[in-house]
């Protein structure tokens, strides 16, 4: 009974699409229960000067990597302050399958990751750090894949979040990325992860980079590292 209602709902969605898209897949009602699944995901870094840390795409049926208004997990704190996704991968119990990029995504460029699983899945999620920041991150939280039919695509734009675990001082000592390192007078890289939580300790939207060019004289960052939303464009195509 539950399966039937899901099929019916998916078909209603397909009908609505058919009105504006001749290529709409009328077989979507049956293809959503095919297994296994594979998704090709193109991730574009839309920012002017923020490297995106290597994304790890996660497939899951339950759970969420973060919730706005709630404290970040320790794994998310590590990711947001250093770009290190290893604890996200090792400590997240609900991951069914994952696939990681071999490196970060430079501003103005894109990367493609393919992720698959042996059975249908409900959600795709990922988080990545904005490298020239204290604890800014972006990502997708529980993108619902259940209505994405074979060979169909969906594009999402991501926004910048603030992990709330490190104050946005933008100083050369606290920002780890290449811009801060280049500004370091002694060549010592800015600290990445620090277990202390000296900010509001909840995840929110990010207020943006202030920068030394905009009056924050103690900032290691310049106009070039400022960003606005959206910060990434992510296109998910179901290939199997």
């Amino acid at each position, binding site marked *: 009974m539950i399966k039937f209602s899901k099929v019916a709902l998916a*078909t209603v969605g397909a009908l609505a699409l058919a009105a504006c898209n001749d290529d709409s897949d009328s077989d979507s009602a049956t293809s959503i229960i095919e297994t296994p699944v594979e998704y090709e995901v193109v991730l574009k870094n839309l920012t002017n000067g923020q490297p995106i840390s290597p994304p790890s795409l996660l497939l899951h049926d339950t759970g969420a990597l973060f919730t706005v208004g709630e404290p970040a997990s320790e794994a998310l704190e590590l990711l947001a302050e250093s770009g290190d996704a290893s604890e996200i991968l090792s400590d997240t119990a609900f991951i069914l399958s994952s696939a990681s990029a071999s490196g970060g995504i430079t501003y103005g460029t894109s990367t493609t990751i393919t992720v698959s699983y042996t059975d249908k899945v409900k959600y795709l999620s990922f988080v990545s750090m904005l490298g020239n920041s204290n604890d800014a991150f972006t990502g997708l939280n529980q993108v619902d894949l259940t209505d994405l039919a074979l060979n169909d695509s969906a594009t999402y734009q991501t926004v910048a979040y603030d992990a709330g675990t490190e104050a946005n001082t933008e100083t050369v000592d606290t920002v780890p990325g290449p811009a801060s390192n280049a500004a370091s007078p002694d060549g010592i890289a800015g600290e990445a992860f620090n277990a202390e939580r000296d900010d509001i300790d909840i995840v*929110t*939207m990010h*207020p943006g980079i202030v920068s030394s060019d905009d009056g924050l004289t103690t900032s290691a960052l310049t106009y070039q590292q400022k960003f606005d939303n959206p910060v990434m464009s992510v296109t998910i195509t179901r290939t199997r």
Partner: protein
Amino acid sequence: MTNKHLIAAGLFGLFSATAQAQDLTVTLTNLTHSIYFTPVVAGAHDASTEIFETTTPATPELELLAEEGDFSGVSGLLGNAGADVIDNPAGGLLASGESTTFLLSNSSGNDYLSVAAMMLPTNDAFIGLDSWEIPSEAGTYTVYLNAYDAGTEANDELADSIPAFPGGDAGTGGAGVTTEISTPNVHIHPGVIGDADAEGGISDLDSSVHRWLNPVAKLTVVVE
């Protein structure tokens, strides 16, 4: 396409066509890092009513909300127009990351949802939703809200012109960012400048604390 699917689609259409009044469960979340929302006003109203519109001047009622955080004028405007109104669902300020959930039963014909609250600390910034058409089909809908400038007060960013600093982080001695109103019409807020000098500089706001990027609020509407 099989007959079974067409029948299912037809039934959905039938249900939505017969729907009159609806029960909505609305959740508003403050997405900002350090901005407070003043008491929220929300209303379901007809197509001829609105609480603000971009590129037109703010009403005196909206000006009161955007400059003082006083929702009573907007609430009265909605009530006089026969809207289904919810006042102050959070019972006070809504801080960063906080959410408030309220039930709104809209009468037949009140098919549009509007929401507003002042953003603190600012001169006349407010979060706004202008006449969002309430879907007739049951489901969960998400709407992201932007920060608007009422266009009624120059954004000097001085403590004397800002009614409250709920975070207790008011600066002093600022010279004032500007004395001009760029446009008297409602528009997307250009954002806060602030500065890093709590006892001087151009602003009494802190550039590392009081800025934001859009969207500033998330509205989730569950239509039953």
